[in-house]
């Protein structure tokens, strides 16, 4: 019987290997197969002892060859490992890594989102003779070994919302969060609370969550992963992947969306994207790799779970240690981390004190701030860099002095003066009223109004002659070159609204690209906004030397990047500048659609972070105008994805310092940026006829099988869903922005 079971297991291992290596034939695999077949053929003729010996030999051969095959794994094989139904899943981890757990927020299919598993778990640690149970909040995607209702760990917006809720609970309870990332990506529907919007909320909250967060990546699919992975320590399973997009998705984009991508192209994309644990460790986006057994961990690998347990405990300890200063001996022990010493034996209290909690958040920011620093090109000279560093310091000092120190006194003085003036006025009124009546001045009925001649003149002569007789027509500072072409265009709403054809010079000139009949907005160049809204002619642009580069050495991308730079005259898809909008000094960042679709990579992220920092330093409002963004730049791989938490954290710091962060969407804004630093603003507006969402209709159809109606991503849908706060007419953006600056804003903003 035992032999049967063992042979069955071996057969299963062979099937698994075949699954992993896909189409590729391979000497080791062939050998295992023939040996197993030979054995099965002979088996009926063999005695018990011989059987046992042969099975033992076969098992050794399997171990040997599995080790050999392990070294032949391609990135795509790893993707297949991670997606294999035999891959360990979160429930296995809960059962084997933790000592006890209670599932909360749903059970199996009876959950708001069965793909998202949330549990309170405990880890028992020895303290002398006592056993202490330490609580953690475990959050992660559950793939359930291929259970249909788990949706492969693709989380719906409400699943992420539920995760966020329990992260907050953990914060209140002051217990660490262990998050396990097992997702191919988020489920990209916009039903409330909306895929993008919810991920951005998660990121925003996690950026400031005051408990240690440890995340473990198995399958880290872009935005869906980020929703729970903004952590103080990021561990990764050695056979996992962490990527901006699935290799299939990348291949689809690469190969032109029309045809189905070939397996070869998918393989190529998988290796170009640098998605493996080793790659990500090298790039600095994860802290440690947890070695799995050859060909990936499966539920029967108990040693692996023990190791995983050690690693998560150690990671949690380290985080606590970094902010809460343990005793010297324990600290040293943890830091040395001799493999021999089980961290379980050294007790570390995981609940943090007040100061440590703030420090934790600061550390987290610093950690992410330092990531992907080298993934963009900084063309500034050394002198310029030193100068800008110094300038920052000076500004910092200046702003502390002016806004914190002096302002307090100034405010006191102003209050005093105001009070005095009010007193005086009260005095005048109190006495003046009756006095005036007594003198008989207030008798309104009989009074005959005398018209002074100069008043009469105002009724009949030209007022404000200095303005000229003709009131200035609304002319635009920048007029689109499209307005010079004599041709007509058809408004897309013609079938429903009966719009007449529009003449190009009218449409792109005077009308600013707005259909005069139905108000549909045709896209306009980013220059139109720069000059007509943001007063770019008088603006001071900074950090233009920061340019996009090709951090992963993605094949063929250098050429495309050069082309984009040449065509747009820009170094990256982001322009940051300081400007005045109707007299209000503001820092503005613009995502430029024509530059690689306005995608965000390391350079764009860094520029936005620096812009937010500048706005914080100078205490000005910060406006992010998305002229259009297709998402994270896939060719930068995780260097791009990491911008989601990075920039969100920077923006959060700015907002918490009292800043006003305002986002304006235009044309098409999708994916990563919307699901992070754009979507997290409390004040998001859209230009009419723009589209906002997580994934486009084509992607939704492909990944979920759901057909979405044609106007699914329209700004008006986003407005009724509560994603954005208003929709603006292009011709009135400047007016609306100015009004927004006057009516919103933080306590420390000095823009009036």
């Amino acid at each position, binding site marked *: 019987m035992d032999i049967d079971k063992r042979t069955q297991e071996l057969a299963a291992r062979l099937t698994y290997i075949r699954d992993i290596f896909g189409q590729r034939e391979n000497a080791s695999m062939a050998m295992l197969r023939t040996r197993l077949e030979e054995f099965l053929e002979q088996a009926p003729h063999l005695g018990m002892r011989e059987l046992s010996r042969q099975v033992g030999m076969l098992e050794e051969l399997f171990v040997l060859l599995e080790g050999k095959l392990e070294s032949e794994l391609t990135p795509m094989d790893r993707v297949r490992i991670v997606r294999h139904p035999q891959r360990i899943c979160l429930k296995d981890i809960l059962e084997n890594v933790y000592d006890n757990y209670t599932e909360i927020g749903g059970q199996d299919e009876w959950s708001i989102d069965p793909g998202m598993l949330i549990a309170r778990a405990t880890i028992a640690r020895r303290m002398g003779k006592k056993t202490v149970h330490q609580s953690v909040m475990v959050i992660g995607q559950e793939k359930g070994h291929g259970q249909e209702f788990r949706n492969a760990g693709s989380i719906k917006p409400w699943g992420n919302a539920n995760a966020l809720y329990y992260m907050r609970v953990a914060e209140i309870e002051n217990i660490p969060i262990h998050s396990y990332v097992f997702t191919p990506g988020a489920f990209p529907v916009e039903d409330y609370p909306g895929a993008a919007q919810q991920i951005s909320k998660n990121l925003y909250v996690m950026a400031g969550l005051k408990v240690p967060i440890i995340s473990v990546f198995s399958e880290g699919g872009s935005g869906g992963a980020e929703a729970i992975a903004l952590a103080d320590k990021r561990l990764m399973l050695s056979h996992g992947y962490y990527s901006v997009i699935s290799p299939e998705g990348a291949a689809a984009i690469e190969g032109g969306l029309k045809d189905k991508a070939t397996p070869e192209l998918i393989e190529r994309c998988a290796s170009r994207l640098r998605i493996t644990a080793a790659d990500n460790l090298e790039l600095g986006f994860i802290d440690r790799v947890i070695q799995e057994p050859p060909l990936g961990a499966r539920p029967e690998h108990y040693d692996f779970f023990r190791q995983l347990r050690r690693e998560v405990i150690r990671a949690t300890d380290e985080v606590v240690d970094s902010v809460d200063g343990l005793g010297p001996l324990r600290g040293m022990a943890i830091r040395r981390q001799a493999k021999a010493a089980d961290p379980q034996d050294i007790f570390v209290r995981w609940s943090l004190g007040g100061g440590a909690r703030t420090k934790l958040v600061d550390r987290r920011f610093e950690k992410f701030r330092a990531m992907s620093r080298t993934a963009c090109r900084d063309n500034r000279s050394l002198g310029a860099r030193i100068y800008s560093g110094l300038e920052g310091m000076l500004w910092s000092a200046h702003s502390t002095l002016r806004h914190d120190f002096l302002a307090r006194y100034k405010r006191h003085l102003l209050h005093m003066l105001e009070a005095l003036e009010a007193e005086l006025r009260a005095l005048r009124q109190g006495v003046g009223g009756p006095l005036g009546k007594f003198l008989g001045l207030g008798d309104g009925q009989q009074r005959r109004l005398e018209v002074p001649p100069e008043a009469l003149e105002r009724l009949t002569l030209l007022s404000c002659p200095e303005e000229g007789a003709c009131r200035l027509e609304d002319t635009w500072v920048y007029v689109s070159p499209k307005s010079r072409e004599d*041709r*007509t265009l058809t408004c897309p709403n013609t079938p429903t609204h009966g719009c007449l054809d529009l003449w190009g010079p009218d449409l792109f000139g005077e009308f600013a690209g707005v259909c005069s009949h139905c108000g549909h907005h045709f896209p306009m160049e980013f220059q139109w906004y720069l000059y007509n809204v943001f007063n770019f002619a008088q603006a001071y642009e900074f950090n233009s030397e920061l340019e996009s580069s090709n951090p992963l050495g993605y094949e063929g991308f250098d050429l495309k990047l050069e082309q984009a730079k040449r065509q747009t005259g820009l170094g990256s898809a982001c322009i940051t500048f300081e400007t005045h909008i109707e007299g209000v000094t503001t820092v503005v960042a613009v995502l430029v659609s024509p530059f690689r679709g306005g995608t965000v990579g390391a350079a764009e992220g860094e520029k936005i972070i620096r812009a937010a920092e500048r706005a914080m330093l100078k205490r000005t409002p910060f406006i992010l105008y998305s002229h259009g963004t297709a998402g994270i730049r896939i060719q930068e791989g995780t260097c791009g994805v990491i911008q989601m938490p990075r920039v969100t954290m920077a923006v959060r710091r700015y907002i918490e310092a009292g800043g006003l962060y305002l986002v304006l969407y235009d044309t098409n804004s999708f994916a990563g940026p919307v699901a992070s630093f754009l979507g997290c603003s409390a004040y998001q507006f859209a230009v009419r006829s723009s589209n906002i969402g997580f994934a486009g209709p084509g992607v939704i159809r492909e990944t979920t099988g759901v057909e979405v*109606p044609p106007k699914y991503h329209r700004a008006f849908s986003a407005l009724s869903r509560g994603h954005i706060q208003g929709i603006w007419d292009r011709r009135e953006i400047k007016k609306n922005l100015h009004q927004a600056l006057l009516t919103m804003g933080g306590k420390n903003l000095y823009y009036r």
Partner: protein
Amino acid sequence: MLNVKEMLEELNASPYEEIEIRTPHTGVVEFVGLAPGDRVNGPSGKWLERPGTLLANLTREKNKKPICATQKGQVMDIRAELEGRFVEAGERLLTIRHFLSKEEVLGRILKKALHLFCAPERAKYYFVPEIDAKIKAGGEQSVKVREGLDMFIVSRMKRETPLSYSGPEGIIYAVYFQQGDNVDGGQPLIGVCPESQLTLIQDVVSRVQGEWEERD
């Protein structure tokens, strides 16, 4: 009483409708190589978001616009002599023979079976807000009408007057006009089914569903 069978036979004798495709405005016509006998499709997709087969292009003031098929059918004849020429608005380009679908046959029979309330004059017609709200909420068949009920707003020459329903009591079974479009005098606005006849109408529906063969 309604003789459904006879009507079905009559329709079976000429089970198609000829749709004339005309230029929506002036411009230069360019055909796309269709020949008589070719099959074309109407708009498709769940929301009819994909336009039908391209029939021709019409260029006016440097703006090239596609003219697409509005219904599925077969191209009958193409006025090839117009190729590359400037044509006036409303010029016939080609004809499509469209075979009636079950819904269309049903519509035709219902038009004969229901009490039709017609537009008294050419004007734009709207439902009064209460009825409009009811239709939007519960569909047309949720609205009961009776003699003298204020139903429509008639908009003509920028002036609006109310119009009340006259005819037998019943429920609205079909609406034949688009709100805000011009309706000629005498054209039906709504089809009303007296409640007593509801079963008969439902019988017609099931018979057409069962007996009508759809053709391409």
